[in-house]
């Protein structure tokens, strides 16, 4: 228990500046969005219309497709980052790999690049006829697809670039998780006659869980919020094929449909709250059990 004197030096006044900025510029807009999502809104005046914006969002094909696209995108990118991140993390933790420091840096660096810059580079690399990717495939005798122009492929192409950019982050999280596994466990496994696969299956996989969970949460939420890549690579097209929720929110905003746009925001909050918070709770619980 803290003494009165201590309570005085750890004064709640320390929260004030940060709390104020957070409240005004984040919390207040977030809370008021719950109200404005149920209005027809021009920024100057509003008219309460109940859940109409939400029913519009779910019934109109051009809007509800964004929910489906966002979920596909988030599941795909986070799933791939979890798998590739683990494999790369294990690979790059091995002291036998001489180039591991170089490889780690190479994998990690794209995280620091502007997403827009990466998007522009890949937009031209993925050009259907002249692009470097399809030219290279052509040398191998494969006719490369229209990566960003095909309605069935475009979303996956963008997801691929997202994975290219983000897998390094997943890898370094795994590497730090692997480094915290005590070496004695592996030594014990060797004494018990375990092979490399046993070590991976019975020691690495269970003990890497906390790191894996961080990767899942981080990349899943990142996937749900994705915006920059879509904006620069496809602008939601072709058709509605790469309309994600954050892109639709932007589009509605530019069309001055402020109430509807805010409803999009609220749906996104609900998605994150419904999917990510329980994931977080579940994950922190499994960590305790270890």
């Amino acid at each position, binding site marked *: 228990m803290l003494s009165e004197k201590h309570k005085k030096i750890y004064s*709640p006044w320390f929260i004030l500046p940060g709390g104020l*900025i957070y409240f005004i510029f984040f919390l207040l807009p977030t809370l008021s969005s719950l109200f404005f999502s149920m209005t027809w809104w021009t920024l100057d005046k509003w008219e309460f219309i109940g859940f109409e914006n939400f029913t519009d969002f779910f019934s109109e094909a051009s809007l509800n497709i964004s929910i489906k696209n966002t979920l596909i995108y988030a599941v795909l990118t986070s799933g791939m980052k979890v798998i590739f991140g683990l494999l790369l993390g294990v690979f790059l933790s091995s002291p036998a790999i001489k180039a591991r420091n170089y490889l780690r840096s190479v994998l990690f660096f794209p995280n620091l690049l*502007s997403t827009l810059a990466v998007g*522009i580079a890949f937009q031209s690399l993925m050009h259907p006829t002249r692009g470097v990717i399809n030219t290279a495939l052509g040398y191998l005798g494969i006719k490369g697809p229209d990566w960003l122009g095909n309605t069935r492929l475009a979303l996956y192409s963008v997801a691929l670039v997202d994975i290219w950019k983000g897998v390094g982050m997943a890898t370094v999280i795994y590497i730090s998780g692997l480094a915290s596994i005590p070496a004695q466990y592996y030594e014990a496994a060797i004494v018990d006659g375990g092979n490399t696969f046993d070590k991976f299956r019975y020691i690495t996989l269970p003990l890497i869980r906390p790191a894996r969970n961080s990767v899942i949460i981080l990349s899943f939420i990142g996937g749900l*919020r994705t915006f920059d890549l879509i904006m620069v690579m496809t602008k939601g097209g072709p058709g509605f094929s790469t309309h994600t929720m954050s892109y639709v929110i932007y589009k509605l905003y530019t069309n001055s449909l402020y109430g509807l746009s805010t409803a999009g925001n609220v749906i996104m909050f609900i998605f994150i709250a419904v999917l990510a918070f329980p994931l977080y709770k579940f994950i922190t619980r499994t960590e305790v059990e270890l």
Partner: protein
Amino acid sequence: MKKKRRSIYIIIDIIAVVLSILLYGVPYYFVILNSLKDRTEAGLMNMKFPDTLHFSNYIEVLKAENYAVIRAFYNSIVITAFSLAGLVIVCSMLGFFMQRRAGTKLVEVLNFFILTGLMIPPAIVPTIWVMQSLGVYKTLRGMILVEIALQLSFGCILYRGYMASIPRELDDAALIDGCGGLRLFFSIIFPLLKPVTSTIIVISAIGIFNDFVHPLYFLPGKQNITVQTTLYQFTGMYFSQWHLLFADVVLISIPPLILFIFFNKKIVAGMVAGAIKG
């Protein structure tokens, strides 16, 4: 047996390096190479080495649209610098309080808000509405305040974690000497937070400098252009002038590259810590 093993590892090493060059080196080389070609050659989007290197593309892109890129660098640097100063002060104080008073109801509530701030994206139009009512919409000041609000969670988590390593005996000693809370914090604790402060500065600098979404919404207008929005504008305007677009891409990738070269370890460790403790 051992020798055979070693040679297998060398082969794996070589394969990995070749793959890394193909997957990661080629895109960079492609962008830099094409930023130095003339308009028609860059439009071909291939990897052929041009007859002459046009370094003048960089001058041209800086001059474009009445020196928009220079204006953008100025704006981005102002936003980044002031946001960082604000973040460091605000987050260190929050982290200090949250670690020292851990376990209290108030801190539990704060923890919840920090988590919310990490996960939930800002509500776009309501934020504009709030900014407008305060008269800071379309101003650098407003943008700085929003950046602080959005980056705050990450900074708090790192400061909170690091505070645990600063002994409470220091606080007690200060108490005995008759030090008040503010003086204790700013003259004793804050200087000790230097390692984590520099981590937060480097990582948030990259985050804010690379931020595109929020300036797009909260800082519209020609005068208010930032480095990322120049890229976006140029994709619209220079659709057929890839050489200038690539030159801009290279220009705005230089600051993060410099930070990465100098602070590689710090950046990785800080980002991992933020991700795991979040």
